[in-house]
């Protein structure tokens, strides 16, 4: 993927209902918004209006959670068609999904589940991504997930798996630096060496937020402010990539919007963004 050809969106927020009202009073402080695709696949009149209002003020980037790109049984084409229609409507510069599977054999797992890092798995992902790319022409970027369990039988490590996937699929990378930090803590590896194995020239966007400790594990709960380790990682990544955007992905224990805006300002400083860009480059919404 030619990352430099993508627009530089800046630093934004994962949109959540809780701060909808306040958000419109702070349009200039949020460079772009990431929306959860699933929330807009079955548009009620209310959700349709919300989508139109958001799109009128912000560049929107859809973030998928349930396409199950890693499903060996193939993709749910009806779901994919609806997703394609949403992306067509929003006309974003890119969209994102996770490197995981969420369903198999009629069971909806309900969360992002880890994949075995094998060559067979890689081929399944590449085939599914090729199908997706036939339906959706907008550039797709792939996100690394946290994993609480290690699927046995790995033929390579996660970083190598992701590298091969990104290079062979033509997709960009949505690097969740919080996920990287959490995995490095829970599975005991050095995140800088992990990072050094990635094709950093393919990183398009970052996710950042904080998790919480539960007994002896760090949980990816999106419930706390971004910790110092993740800020350090952000600075490191920013030096070696051509970042086009970063999203604060807070889902739980959501504080008042000014607290989130302060984190966005800090991220701009760490990354080296100087000004907001979204108001000058809104795409047309059909």
């Amino acid at each position, binding site marked *: 993927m030619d990352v430099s050809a993508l627009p530089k969106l800046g630093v934004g927020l994962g949109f959540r209902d809780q701060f909808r009202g306040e958000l419109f009073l702070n349009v200039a402080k949020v460079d772009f918004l990431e929306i959860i695709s699933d929330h807009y696949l079955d548009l009620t009149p209310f959700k349709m209006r919300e989508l139109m209002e958001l799109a009128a003020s912000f560049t929107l980037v859809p973030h998928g959670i349930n396409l199950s790109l890693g499903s060996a049984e193939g993709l749910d084409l009806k779901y994919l068609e609806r997703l394609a229609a949403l992306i067509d409507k929003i006309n974003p510069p890119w969209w994102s999904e996770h490197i995981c599977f969420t369903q198999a054999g009629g069971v909806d797992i309900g*969360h992002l589940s880890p994949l075995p890092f094998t060559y067979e798995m890689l081929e399944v992902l590449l085939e599914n991504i090729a199908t997706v790319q036939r339906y959706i022409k907008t550039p797709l970027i792939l996100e690394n997930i946290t994993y609480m369990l290690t699927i046995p039988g790995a033929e390579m490590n996660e970083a190598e798996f992701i590298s091969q996937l990104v290079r062979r699929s033509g997709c960009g990378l949505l690097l969740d630096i919080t996920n990287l930090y959490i995995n490095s803590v829970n599975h005991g590896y050095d995140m800088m060496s992990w990072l050094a194995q990635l094709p950093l020239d393919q990183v398009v966007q970052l996710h950042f937020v904080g998790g919480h400790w539960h007994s002896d594990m760090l949980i990816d709960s999106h419930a706390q402010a971004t910790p110092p380790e993740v800020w350090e990682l952000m600075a490191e990544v920013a030096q070696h990539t051509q970042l086009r955007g970063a999203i604060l992905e807070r889902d739980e224990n959501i504080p008042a919007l000014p607290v989130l805006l302060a984190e966005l300002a800090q991220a701009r400083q760490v990354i080296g963004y100087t000004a907001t860009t979204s108001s000058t480059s809104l795409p047309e919404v059909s």
Partner: protein
Amino acid sequence: MGLKEVQETLATLYTNSSLRAEFAANPQAVGAKLGLSSKDIAQLAPLAAKQLENFANSLKAKRLNEVSKQLTLSEQALGKQFAELFLVFADTYLPHGIKKHYHDAQAFAQYLQQVPTLTPWLKDLVCYEALNLQTNENKPFLRVKFFNCLIQPILRDLHNKQLSNNYRGMSIGVWLKWPGQEQPRHWLLSFTQKKKR
């Protein structure tokens, strides 16, 4: 046999407590029961039981969290029973699709109606909240429902965080939503029963 079957097995193990317990005790037997090849069984057998249990518990916790957000009144009224009952219910139902959290909340509300230890007014409150949720769906809606308790005082007391146990009376709720209408119309009336002289 291959990756597809391995993923089906994993999905089942993540979401089925009793199978997970069997697997922890004897992965080979469970693998054979699920029709896995010996190669697939050999691949899955080293799955760490603790990691598997942690992940499965995190899935339930995520469901509980999402359902709590939808049934906020019921959660407030039920207190810690809400989570306890949900964890039992979660083993009996698996939601799916883009509205899985909504379906989970509706199914849990139905489940609560069958719990014999819950007082009738709590069941009515759960039913009332589930009906409220249904009107957010993308379809026309007309529903009239009688409740054998005073819903309005319950809502008031929940707001004031001072629940009592005396909500004897009757309520009638009406929900109406036309095609294309953004917000449903809703009427709720509660009547106390006058004592006979």
